[in-house]
């Protein structure tokens, strides 16, 4: 990834290549999630426990979002809010 960033810097002005990167990343992500899907489908333990996994996932989302939002309340109040 570091190699990629450095290479990216040096070819910043080659617009054609730059434009091709976005779609290429998308394709790589599609392939990888497709492969992840396959291994999940092959894994009976995961398939049988999807509801448990989903519940845990949602609880973590709730924690992450609420933590961020509550802290953001204070960040806004003390650093960003302008007095009118």
């Amino acid at each position, binding site marked *: 990834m570091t190699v990629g960033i450095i290479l990216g810097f040096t070819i910043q002005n080659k617009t054609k290549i730059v434009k091709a990167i976005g779609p290429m990343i998308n394709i790589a992500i599609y392939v990888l999630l497709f492969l992840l899907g396959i291994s999940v489908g*092959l894994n009976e333990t995961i398939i049988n426990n999807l509801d448990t996994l989903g519940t845990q996932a949602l609880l973590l989302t709730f924690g992450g979002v609420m933590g961020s939002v509550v802290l953001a309340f204070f960040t806004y109040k003390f650093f960003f809010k302008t007095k009118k």
Partner: protein
Amino acid sequence: MKDSLIIVGFFVLGIFIGLYHLLPQIFIETDFSIYALYILMFLVGVGIGTDKKAWEILKNAKLKIVLVPLTVIIGTAIGVSIVSIFLKDISLRESLAIGAGYGYYSLSSIFISQISGEALGVIALISNISREITTLLVTPIFARYFGKIAPIASGGATSMDSTLPIITKFVGKEYAIISVFSGIVLTILVPFAVTFILKF
């Protein structure tokens, strides 16, 4: 939104193919995903390096706006830590790694499944997709009761693209640049943070 559906579509298609054993044996025996991941890492690196606008925004940022992604990082860590007390099957370290996806579900779930197995990868995928969906749906309420930074914080890494329109609609255009900045910082951070949390 269209992109999200395509990504989830590929994942679900994969599940069905795996579930009904519709694929040649070689796929099951060889793990192609690690090579695909190397390619992806490289491409993401090139993408970050070539993104002139992103570097421009990072360079010209006022010191104060660094507080916004920092808020997301600390807030998320505190939130998931509290939740992880109640989750018997997931360790604190794993919870923190899932949180450190900051809504960037495609990359974070790929990394996490590669390091800690598919089960945790699936949790990361669902959890981070939900973060994006939550932000899309609840932004008006967050903006009203928790201030103008709150929707940006909720969006995490997605506040630079998929959730940007709804965020600017409710907190105003003057916060768009902060939203994009925070999203860029977190997006770049995701692969490093996830790997670091799980490996050290």
